[in-house]
């Protein structure tokens, strides 16, 4: 009995009229937790009842506390007939279970009914008293923190990043139970809501257990999804990254925050080492050799080459995983099999995939041999892994080991305790930590500087499954095996790219009838071995940043794979920054743009859209048809992305997300990413149109298309301010003295350096990307390329956390969700026609957003997240969630100049982004005279001609001066904002809570208790899909918000049709999220996302149903300028809660 849950029902307001005769309601409340129910008295004849109940106490296991929600039902008392339910409130009490989050839940909650929507509000106070449970065999995982945020949360420092955690639970879907035929829709919906709430609780608890076993205390990048499989069940699954987080005291500098050592799982090693040792003595023997390498490594000029274990070992693993492949899916020679693995950067040519283990160690050493460093040391640890490979087949076994180890160690789970005695051992083992892990995956998308060494490219895997073939639908085994299979494939893809880890990893499904497409994608990467080896434990001793041999702003672009044995065809050049390492011509990733990356101009949203018709079919035939289509879709999406990228004159994609959605008669593919120009990568050549069949198309036609394309490229360059700093190369010390030649040479990729001859042989001097027009389809494709309208002036868009090129956000934030469903009336649609319709749908949505948000200009739509679905045969549904944020136009240019100053790094010159003219000739001519202009010109965006060698220092001075100005302007603006707000709140007694200034908020929240009975106003809760709110600092994470709602109507017309119905439902969902956050004492939701929005309608029956699942992190954030008061605000927040308590 380790926990006591206490709940108190205070009052209700705005209740609906339940008794027509009196126009009043006799309301009472049932409070239920587990199997215990309490009731309040009936408050007769009132629409604003005051119950002021006693404290209802539930004595429960903490396991139940994690799984169950507190269920509050408001009813209307009826003497003669059954009591009518008004509605319910489910309160997830998880945030109360860990000490650092909320201490009390108190506030007004909307009373929700699945048929009528929100019907009034109820004021509830909930508290939990937890007794410390030292039972090491416990089933609960109270205290493990969950974050949806895909980076290290703002007020924490990650001492350890343990790695991938996943879990999956299955249950029968109440909607498909026999009882559903006789119960009311309301009862059915409520059963479903409750079940999903229970399942998410259980899932979270189980993941928490895994984290404790690994020695962590938190899950970051927690991604939970539902699969409504229909007959075969309801699946709730989640993935995340286990970490050990330390809370930073609010006073400490934010810098320490960024410098973290997310090193890998030493604690988990510590846990499992005893048992592992027993099994694999080889491992222990290896230790000396694996701890050896540091010295030679540091001597390396660039540490970009992967650590000892990179390419050779992966292959050993890969062999094991491909075995698994064989057993589960028919494997063909082509990579495009039933499970298609074309990924973007992937396109793994079959020879590589099928390479034998034996041949690989050799190639591995060649791969990283540029530094001419002997890598012989690496072979030893690999063999141990190889022997380990049998283990990998069973996903469970690994965790079982951990479990054994953990209990054997005798300490329940805190990493700190174990770290001490095992430290030495630990350090030696961390190097191979990643290798030991079953899946070296990270759901994080942004990392602290230096963590990410190299990025290989996107890896993705899809698999088509038949749900009616599940042997034991109520058990998770089959699905576990499916995902296991997919993850293995992802891992092997990463190996093929010479990478040992996958970052920005995510999983998704698309279900239509009995067919299910499972997808997973991520970015193959190499993480810093030094962090793994030494990790946080040495954080005080050395600052690794200064030893970092690879320049942070280009290092991640350097290829991790072996250039002689590339997994796919690519043009390699020397990095345009450091000129030491090879980089690809384009880079696709699923992660966010690293903050240190050098970028020219602004980023923009790039989407590839595709529709493919498919014959209606059943069962296996259907699955095969889909499987056959998938590779072509991926290929076309890839081509579209590539073309659009070139068209915008950019060379890298971040945050790439490819969704393939299956319907009865079509497949929809939507790829979204943020394009950016990385200055480390070569400038993209243009697009050249070539007519293959001159008979069909006149050359004039081709040249007119060519002209349009060239014009578009030129316009886009201007629009996104892409003026790559070609002259910056000078600082690097290029061997070529004459700039006139230089620019030309760069473009043709011919390098003077000696080692490169083989590269030139393998890749010709391809300047432009050639598009061949061989039929009318190709013409259509090119036309559709040009359809994408650029955002109107004042707007930018991206789908990542950070907008490349914009960082000076102002306080305007508007999160929104938009849903559009299109009915295809024409039955004889072609693929082309469908593509056009789909593209227009997406484009029109964007146009609508721009129009609606025009008052926020200058503004950027961030984290644009498109989700497509085919809910019915002729319907296409697109759901978008994004946030519009205002920024300060004036400061945009200055920012780039400041950046190097702030960093104070060697790369200052390289990072300067001068809006230079592209023509190198003219710039070179006035190179000597332009130094002064350059600094000024930069700030005013006058496009100065050039810069000289000493511009760096000038820019320093210049930008500090600018910064001063900027600061001044900043303070002035803030001042005025504040006054206006104050006058406002004075003028209108409506609310003193017009916030944005969380300080005020804190104050008002403490007042809340005293006012809660009167007509008090409502706390403003900001929501954003990003992990931050501009101009504010998050001082406290209050817990995860994970809510699932069903809404149904049998009077669709009366509710304003489908649009009216969904509009009010989405508004209600927002309202309920806000209410929960406010009750936790928070004022914002970050990393908000709408995971699911399933809409079904039956207009003939005047019915509709919608399911929505949302999640995010509830936080308290304060204005950045009020830092000193942060502590007091936090206190206010807490006392606010207790005051509420006292007052009632």
């Amino acid at each position, binding site marked *: 009995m380790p926990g006591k849950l206490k709940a108190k029902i205070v009052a209700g307001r705005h209740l609906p009229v339940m008794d027509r005769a009196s126009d009043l309601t006799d309301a009472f409340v049932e409070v239920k937790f587990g199997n215990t129910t309490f009731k309040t008295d009936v408050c007769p004849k009132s629409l604003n009842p005051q119950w002021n109940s006693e404290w209802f106490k539930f004595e429960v296991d903490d396991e139940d506390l994690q799984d169950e929600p507190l269920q509050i039902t408001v009813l209307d008392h009826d003497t003669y007939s059954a009591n009518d339910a008004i509605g319910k409130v489910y309160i997830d009490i998880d945030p109360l279970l860990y000490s650092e989050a909320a201490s009390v839940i108190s506030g007004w909650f909307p009373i929700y009914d699945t048929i009528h929507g929100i019907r009034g509000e109820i004021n509830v106070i909930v508290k939990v008293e937890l007794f410390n449970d030292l039972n090491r065999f416990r089933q609960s995982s109270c205290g493990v923190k969950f974050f949806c945020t895909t980076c290290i949360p703002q007020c924490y420092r990650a001492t350890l990043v343990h790695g991938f955690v996943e879990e999956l639970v299955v249950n029968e879907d109440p909607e498909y139970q026999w009882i559903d035929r006789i119960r009311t829709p309301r009862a059915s919906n409520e059963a479903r809501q409750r079940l999903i709430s229970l399942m998410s609780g259980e899932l979270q608890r189980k993941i928490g257990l895994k984290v404790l076993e690994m020695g962590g205390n938190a899950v970051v990048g927690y991604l939970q999804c539902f699969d409504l499989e229909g007959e075969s069940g309801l699946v709730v699954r989640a993935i995340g990254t286990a970490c050990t987080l330390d809370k930073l005291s609010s006073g400490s500098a934010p810098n320490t925050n960024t410098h973290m050592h997310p090193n890998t799982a030493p604690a988990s090693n510590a846990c499992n080492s005893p048992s592992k040792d027993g099994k694999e003595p080889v491992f222990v023997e290896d230790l000396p050799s694996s701890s050896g390498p540091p010295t030679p490594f540091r001597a390396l000029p660039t540490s970009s080459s992967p650590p000892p274990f990179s390419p050779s070992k992966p292959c050993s693993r890969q062999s094991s995983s491909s075995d698994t492949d064989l057993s589960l899916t028919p494997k063909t020679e082509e990579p495009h099999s039933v499970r298609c693995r074309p990924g973007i950067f992937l396109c793994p040519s079959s020879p590589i995939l099928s390479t034998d283990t034996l041949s690989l160690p050799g190639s591995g050493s060649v791969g990283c041999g540029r530094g001419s460093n002997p890598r012989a040391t690496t072979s030893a640890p690999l063999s141990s892994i190889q022997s380990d490979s049998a283990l990998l087949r069973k996903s469970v076994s690994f965790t079982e080991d951990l479990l054994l180890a953990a209990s054997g160690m005798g300490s329940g789970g805190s990493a700190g305790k174990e770290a001490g005695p095992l430290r030495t051992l630990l350090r030696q083992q961390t190097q191979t930590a990643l290798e030991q892990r079953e899946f070296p995956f990270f759901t994080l998308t942004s990392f602290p500087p230096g963590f990410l060494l190299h990025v290989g490219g996107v890896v993705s895997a899809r698999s088509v499954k038949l749900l009616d073939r599940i042997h034991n639908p109520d058990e998770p085994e089959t699905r576990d095996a499916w995902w296991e299979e997919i993850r293995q494939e992802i891992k092997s893809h990463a190996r093929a790219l010479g990478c040992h880890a996958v970052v920005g990893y995510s999983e998704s499904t698309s279900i239509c009838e009995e067919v299910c497409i499972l997808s997973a994608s991520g970015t193959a990467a190499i993480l810093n071995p030094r962090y793994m080896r030494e990790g946080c434990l040495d954080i005080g001793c050395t600052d690794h940043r200064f030893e970092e041999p690879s320049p942070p702003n280009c290092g991640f672009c350097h290829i991790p794979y072996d250039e002689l044995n590339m997994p796919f065809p690519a043009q390699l050049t020397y990095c345009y920054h450091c000129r030491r390492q090879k980089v690809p011509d384009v880079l696709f990733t699923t992660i966010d743009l690293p903050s240190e990356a050098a970028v020219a101009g602004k980023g923009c949203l790039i989407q590839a859209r595709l529709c493919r018709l498919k014959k209606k079919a059943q069962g296996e035939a259907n699955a095969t048809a889909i499987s056959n289509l998938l590779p072509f879709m991926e290929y076309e999406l890839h081509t579209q992305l590539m073309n659009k990228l070139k068209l915008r004159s950019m060379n890298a994609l971040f945050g790439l997300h490819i969704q393939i959605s299956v319907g009865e008669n079509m497949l929809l593919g939507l790829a979204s990413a943020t394009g950016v120009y990385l200055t480390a990568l070569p400038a993209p050549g243009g697009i050249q149109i070539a007519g293959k069949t001159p008979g069909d198309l006149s050359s004039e036609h081709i040249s007119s298309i060519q002209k349009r394309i060239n014009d578009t490229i030129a316009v886009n360059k201007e629009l996104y301010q892409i003026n790559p700093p070609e002259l910056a190369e000078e600082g690097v010390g290029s061997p070529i003295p004459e700039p006139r030649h230089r620019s030309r040479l760069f473009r043709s990729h011919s390098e003077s350096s000696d080692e490169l001859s083989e590269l030139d042989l393998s890749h010709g001097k391809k300047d432009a990307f050639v598009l061949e027009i061989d039929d009318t389809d190709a013409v259509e494709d090119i036309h559709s390329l040009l359809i994408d309208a650029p955002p109107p002036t004042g707007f930018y868009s991206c789908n990542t956390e950070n907008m490349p090129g914009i960082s000076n956000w102002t306080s305007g934030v508007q999160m929104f969700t938009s849903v559009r469903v299109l009915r295809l009336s024409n039955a004889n649609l072609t693929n082309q026609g469908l593509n056009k319709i789909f593209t227009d749908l997406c484009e029109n949505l964007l146009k609508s957003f*721009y129009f609606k948000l025009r008052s926020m200009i200058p503004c950027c739509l961030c984290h644009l997240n498109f989700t497509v679905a085919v809910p019915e045969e002729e319907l296409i549904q697109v759901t978008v969630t994004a946030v519009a944020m205002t920024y300060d136009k004036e400061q945009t240019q200055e920012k780039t100049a400041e950046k190097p100053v702030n960093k104070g790094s060697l790369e200052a010159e390289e990072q300067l982004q001068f809006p230079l003219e592209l023509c190198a000739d003219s710039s070179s001519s006035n190179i000597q005279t332009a130094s002064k202009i350059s600094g000024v010109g930069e700030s005013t965006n006058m496009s100065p001609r050039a810069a000289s060698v000493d511009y760096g220092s000038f820019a320093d001075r210049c930008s500090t001066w600018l910064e001063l100005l900027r600061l001044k302007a900043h303070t002035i603006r803030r001042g005025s904002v504040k006054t206006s707000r104050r006058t406002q709140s004075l003028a209108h007694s409506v609310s003193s809570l017009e916030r944005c200034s969380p300080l005020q908020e804190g104050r008002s929240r403490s007042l809340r208790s005293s006012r809660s009975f009167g007509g008090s106003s409502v706390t403003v809760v900001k929501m954003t899909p990003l992990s931050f709110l501009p101009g504010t600092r998050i001082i406290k994470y209050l817990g995860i918000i994970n809510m699932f709602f069903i809404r149904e109507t049998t009077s669709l017309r009366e509710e304003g049709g489908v649009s009216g119905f969904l509009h009010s439902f989405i508004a209600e969902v*927002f309202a309920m999220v806000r209410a929960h956050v406010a009750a936790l004492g928070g004022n914002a939701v970050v990393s908000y996302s709408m995971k699911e929005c399933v809409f079904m309608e039956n207009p003939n029956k005047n019915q509709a149903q919608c399911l929505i699942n949302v999640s995010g992190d509830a936080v308290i954030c304060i204005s950045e300028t009020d830092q000193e008061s942060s502590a007091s605000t936090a206190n206010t927040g807490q006392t606010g809660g207790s005051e509420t308590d006292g007052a009632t």
Partner: protein
Amino acid sequence: MSVELDVFVGNTTIMDEEVYQLWLDGYTVNDAVKVRMEGGVMDECEASKDVLLSDTMDQYRTFQMCERLLHSPAKLANQLLFQIPPHRQIMLIERYYAFDDTFVREVLGKKLSKGTKKDLDDISAKTSVTLKSCRRQFDNFKRVFKVVEELKGPLVENIRQHFLLSDKLARDYAAIVFFANNRFETGKRKLQYLSFQDFAFCAGQLISNWTVGAVDNMVEDMDVDLDKEFLQELKELKILITDKDLLDQHKSLVCTALRGKTKVFIEMEGSFKNLSRGLINIAANISLPLRLYPCRSDRWSAADMKLYLTHYTNSAHILDTFKHQVVWDRYMGVVKSCIFKMYHD
């Protein structure tokens, strides 16, 4: 191919003031789109007609959902469904309760009943205010009337607090309620030239001087019902016209004071009896205070009128036998200011 469903929901509810006004004015979605297109909003953001239509539909839906809340504005501040910044809330309420002067002029003084509501289409045709807008305005009047009917305390303050209106708008509503309650006719042809604001001023005067509330501020309906005792006392003023001596005495006093000060003295002198009778009769039969109209003459300037009434009032004080000085002041103070207000072109 058709758009089956199209919604856009912001965490902070997005509302365009221009569209709100079009909605309030009763435009259909399509008409509103036309108006917006003509207004040039399309150029602002490279929008197309479809975009405009989609936006207008979204906003109309939002307003319809908000309408329920606007019926009791206090709810708007503490409802949870829409996150609307306070200044926006105030704008929404203020505009929702705003009315067309031409419309209100038609229903002023009429009973706010179903019967009147049936006539709204006539009024709509007459005033060229859309029927939808007429209905909203009429329902607003009725709603405010119903709520304040049962409240104690000062009328204007009640309206202001209950409906969160600005002081100006609250006063206007007080006037509407006052007229509706006392059913003062304002539709007479002779009164046509008077604007709603003229009447509102008069109502304000009456409320602050002649109602129960002017004496006691804690009774129900204090500002709506006229002070009955006062009305009774007013009857006593009749003495000024029934008592021949008093009348003559009054006339000579007024004439002495006015002589040489105005060009229309002769006329004033001649019509004194009629004027005085008119004024006093109103007092005796207060239900129609707006019969004050007889005072109006084409040839009298506003200054003349002011002069005349001032002396007319003051002279009465000098009359030895006239004992109702207090009532006289309370009466004439209001009558004077009302007449001044109405005495315009």
